[in-house]
């Protein structure tokens, strides 16, 4: 933009891979993920923290990457939707459940929803309930589904994961 903005070298871990990249101080994590690391799974719906489509996990906690400066995650672990599938050899149980339930129509909000839902299931001590899902995902807007199939899919995935753990 002009000569006064100086990029800084930032080290961050994204999906278990370390990166050392030059980042301008005003760049958001979302911009760095999408336009510098080409991790385009995190979506920009509003760029001001209203819609949740850019949700990623920072040290395991869902955060809005459009409201997070990239320099602020130096040294921390970022997980995006591209990293989710690696958890279970290609496809996370949530992704499988979303696929079976047709929980992603246009799919634009889905990456953010998956990361919010994964954090919920990881913390849960038993299969989750309708109310728990609604509360955990309240920061993620979806305009296609009416949410019904998403709730079905998250509950179904949590049952699958707990059934697997019991074996």
């Amino acid at each position, binding site marked *: 933009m002009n000569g006064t903005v100086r990029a800084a070298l930032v080290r961050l871990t994204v999906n278990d891979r370390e990166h050392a990249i030059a980042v301008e101080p005003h760049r958001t994590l979302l911009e760095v993920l999408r336009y510098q690391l080409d991790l385009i799974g995190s979506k920009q*719906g*509003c760029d001001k923290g209203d819609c949740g489509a850019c949700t990623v996990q920072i040290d395991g906690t869902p955060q809005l990457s459009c409201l997070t400066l990239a320099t602020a995650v130096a040294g921390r672990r970022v997980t995006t939707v591209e990293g989710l599938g690696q958890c279970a050899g290609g496809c996370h149980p949530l992704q499988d459940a979303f*696929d079976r339930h047709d929980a992603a*129509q*246009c799919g*634009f909000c*889905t990456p953010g929803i998956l990361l919010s839902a994964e954090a919920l299931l990881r913390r849960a001590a038993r299969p989750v309930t309708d109310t728990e899902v*609604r509360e955990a995902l*309240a920061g993620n807007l979806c305009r296609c589904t*009416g949410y019904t199939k998403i709730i079905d899919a998250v509950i179904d995935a949590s049952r699958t994961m707990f059934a697997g753990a019991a074996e």
Partner: protein
Amino acid sequence: MPDDVKPVPQLASTTWQIGRVHRKVDAMERMRGVLRYTDDLTLPGMLHGKIKRSPHAHARIISIDASRALAMPGVFAVVTGKDFPTPYGIIPWTPDETALAVDKVLYVGDGVAAVAAIDEDTAIAALAAIDVQYEVLTPIYDPEQALAESDSNPINPYAKHGNLSKEVLLEFGDIDGQIAKADLVIEGEYFFEGTTHAAIEPHCALAQAEPNGLVTVWSATQVSHYLHRELSKVLGIPAHQLRVIQPPLGGAFGGKSEPFDLEFCVAKLAMITGRPVKILYTREEVFYAHRGRHPMRMRYRTGFTKDGKILAMDAKTTIDGGAYSSFGLVTTFYSGQLACSPYVMGAYRFHSRRAYTNKPACGPKRGHGSVQPRFATEVQLDKAAVALGIDPIELRRRNDLGADSETLNAFKIGSNGFLECLSRVEAASEWRERRAALPFGRGLGVAGSTYISGTNYPIYPNAMPQAAVQICVDRSGRARVFSGANDIGQGSSTMLAVIVSEELGMPLVDIRVLAADTDLTPVDLGAYSSRITLMVGNACLEAAKKLRKKVCESVAKRWEIPASRVVLIDRQALDRENPEQRVPLTQAFWWAEEDHGLLGEIGSYNTPKDRHGEYRGGTIGASPAYSFTAHVAEVEVDPETGVVLVKHIWVAHDCGRALSRRIVEGQMEGSAYMGFGEALMEQHIVDPKHWGVHTGPSLLDYRIPTFLDTPALHSLIVEAPDDRGPYGAKEGGEGPLHPSIPAIANAIYDAVGVRMDELPFSPPRVLRALAARAAAEAAGTLPKHKPEEGHR
């Protein structure tokens, strides 16, 4: 738990894919975050574009000076309206907008100049350096005022009739005679505040101009063919030198169904600079781009016999169109033409006027033009049911139009599952058991509706097919399906794969659908008016059946059996009467290729042209087949706060035949959700006291329902197969929205005895209505509505 998603071949069954639950052909790629939407595309050397927008609602442009911007390092080009002044419009009869404003700006947010720069920050800085001088004119925000000041303060310079964008007056039967005969006449005035689509993906376009003159535009559009035509016209380059590609799309709902300024700007800037150019709207720009549901003020008179038969319906509607026509000509017809079903009536008249105002232009949103009048119509029926002491579901049954019938305005109805829709929501909501017993504050409401499965006449007059599909089968046993249809998240590509799978016997994973690329795919008119399943489905079915015939004949020849005995299923060809005789499907394809050469077929579909009335406008609203819907909503109204809590919506929808069950359910649930949001929360308005700026152009301030707001949605699929649809299928994407709003309004009345005739049903409005009711009860002019909890 879901049904088994793996299709189980059953020879006894007549179908092996139709009506099952499927994994969509592209959903997993979307969920893995690897499928590239438009803004996920980056080309080498790509520049970033930005559009400078008017801060005034109504002004004349005196001058635009871009010299300072052009002198900035990193700025490659600036264009203004004078660079491409040809007026265009999605409806060919009303070309009243230009890519960027030429002489006048007509609303806050109208584009005046566009810049291409090395990065987004530079482009934003360059916008600030463009100096635009305006002569500010008096803005008009009220449609009635606009019509009154048509001569003194005309808004749109391309308009043919001042500030009157379109007027339609149609009358069927003897309105005055039928009203005079009526035992009961209900008069009501309704106001539908406008709402917008709010797809989570903002509009985005990217263009590349090659040295040979070919211009490619990637755009988040739901109408690539119409965009192709308008780009050619405005850019002044022949259509064969233009290629439009719709990448995977993040929701549309009608909000991406016409060209927008960014598509013209990226193409023009790419042609000037020789570099690829991308523009991504900010969320604020999406709100100003709008083209959402029109505000309508509707004055209705409905006459009834004492046993609840509709004798007459008389509608006068003022439509607030905003700055441009958009689809407004059609909207004005739809505001009346789709109201003569699902009910029989003795006479019907509508008089609709659409006015220009200095606001973001309105256009088509899911249920184009007919959601607003459906609200008025169905609340009128509810008022009559109360006045006549007839159960509201029963009143609707008594007026049912029935199958193989004709509406009063001469549309021919084929299959009709409306009565079953009513029965299903009645049973599922336990209407008969619960409704009378619900205490004050809780209530159930019902509404019904109908919608089109595409329109029989395309937007620009031509007699060519509305849809075409090309299918190729290769030696590996896979099929490639080429279709111009826009999959906007509704699952149309999967719908095509289901049909090909059903006919050719390979599972969905062996089918690749290549969609919406004007260089590769046949012309399709796009994703609007709920046309794709019926029209593109029929075209696909024709092509698939031709291929199937060839393959079955080649197999039959080698087995020396009749071709009718050959079944293609689950990657195999087998003999129906001797299932042990079987070969892999690839072998069957090889035999067919030996006999016929390369295996490819085309199918096309054109609409019937004999299913409408012989009057001016009689073709608008005519469809090959009509869907039917009924909703019951259950609400809780808090009389202290005025907050309306919708607990449940039961939605029964006659989609003819559900080709893929879960996708149909998703359309029904998404529709009910969207209508619910419009009923209670959403308001797309500009503020006249603040120079016409939007009151909340963000996804926080423009409130759309979250996970916590949305009620339990219960989808009940009803199947009344129609001869004109593929396997009997009709639409499912827009019809299920229509009854949402009146069902909730009617449930609020049932709960607390107040009529909500203005949208949205926000707490202040509900409280005012409750206070008025309480005053009337205190004065003795109204009885107590119904007993409180425990006082029965």
